[in-house]
């Protein structure tokens, strides 16, 4: 039995991305390196033989998925429960949480300019965000962060797949850091039209 076949069987049977170290559990002879080599070999074979699926790197692991060009054929099966897309408000809140985690509800609402209790609840129900701690302030507010399912939902390999602030078309001069680290925002208050975010 070739390593690649064992890895293929595992990827085939899994309905979620598996990291190389998880895949290696299938057999004592496997380790992360041999799994990576097997994945490379399988990718080449699938490409060569025009398979309708491919190995995609998601959330730090590997997953077998159909190639996107087959979506129109699969769409014809009306019994497919398509994963429901997130609403605009939910995406907004999720974008804020992804860049500013851990972050509390009040701060999310300040950035969006609207109440966000409902959308945060939706994101929690869908397993895309979770409470990751409590803040320091009055009432020790709940702080939210993204989950591994967040990466899976968007097909990201890691949080680094999100666009970096400096690559965004909007030039948010000073607090460009703060999009990634909320704590830094003090340092940004030096010059320019930038003020500190004071929630509430």
């Amino acid at each position, binding site marked *: 039995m070739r390593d690649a076949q064992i890895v293929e069987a595992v990827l*085939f*049977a*899994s*309905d*979620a991305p598996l990291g190389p170290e998880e895949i290696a559990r299938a057999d004592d002879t496997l380790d992360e390196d041999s799994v990576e080599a097997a994945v490379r070999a399988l990718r080449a074979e699938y490409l060569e033989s025009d398979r309708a*699926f491919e190995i*995609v790197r998601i959330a730090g692991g590997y*997953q*077998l*998925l*159909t*190639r*996107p060009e087959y*979506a129109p054929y*699969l769409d014809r*099966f009306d*019994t*497919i*429960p*398509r*994963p429901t*897309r*997130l609403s*605009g*408000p939910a*995406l*907004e809140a*999720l*974008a*804020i949480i*992804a*860049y500013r985690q851990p972050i509390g509800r009040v701060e999310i609402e*300040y*950035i*969006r*300019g*609207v*109440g966000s209790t409902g959308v945060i609840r939706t994101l929690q129900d869908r397993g895309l965000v979770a409470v990751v701690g409590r803040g320091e302030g009055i009432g020790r507010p709940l702080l939210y962060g993204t989950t591994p399912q967040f990466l899976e*939902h*968007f*097909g*990201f390999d890691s949080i680094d*797949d*999100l*666009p970096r*602030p400096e690559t*965004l*078309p*909007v*030039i*948010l001069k000073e*607090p460009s850091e703060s*999009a990634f680290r909320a704590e830094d925002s003090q340092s940004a208050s030096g010059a320019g*039209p*930038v*003020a500190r*975010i004071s929630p509430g």
Partner: protein
Amino acid sequence: MHAPSSSAEPGMFIVEIDDFEGPLDLLLHLIREQDIDVVDIPVSRITRQFLEVIEALDLDSAGEFLEMAATLVRIKAQLLLPRPAGEPGEDPRAELVRRLLEYEQVRVVSHRLRSAEAERIRRLAKGFFPLRPAPRAEEAPLETTWDELLVAAVGVAVQGGDERGHHVPRLLVSLEEKVDLILAALEEARRVEFGRLVRSSPGRVHGVMTLLAGLELSRERRVRLRQSRYFHELWICRPEAEDNRARGDEQSAVGSEP
């Protein structure tokens, strides 16, 4: 809810408040539509336009918009106040500008997320969609094997006898023994008749256990069971690859030969 269009003023436009996620979104829209430099917002003009748009709002949903309107009016007032001499002070618009820019970033990122989501949804994972309604009550897979079912079926007869409590005949012969028997027989021949295996050790328990062993091996796909008709001879065959090739598309674990 339609915002009033002030046709009197050139450059004005019809906007639908429902199209906006909130007051920052609306404000940003007004600014971007008119090519205004966000760091130098003409507060009087923008405030007037903003108020015109939100006039059409339900009071129920207007809270956040009204709050923003109040902020705009306050900034406008601050700009009109003379600054104390020698004190540079901060531009009253600074915090709003920072929020708008930050919000615009959020918008850009959420659009990126939207397209990543659309791209991901075009791919399906293995076994992603059930094309038949799955049994609802039980999520966990069923582990019951066919041999268990058969033992139960055999038990139906036992129940007909005297000892109603004993559904399952006491097994004096081990399943492993019979598994070995079958595998040994298949070492010698590509297929073997069930009857021949059973005749080697007569007795009902032996028969049942041999059958169970065959079914267990078949379930594990280590053998194939073939029977042309009910009550006809049951064949236990090797599941070999050359067998597959010879059979072409006939690959079912337990196939019925027509």
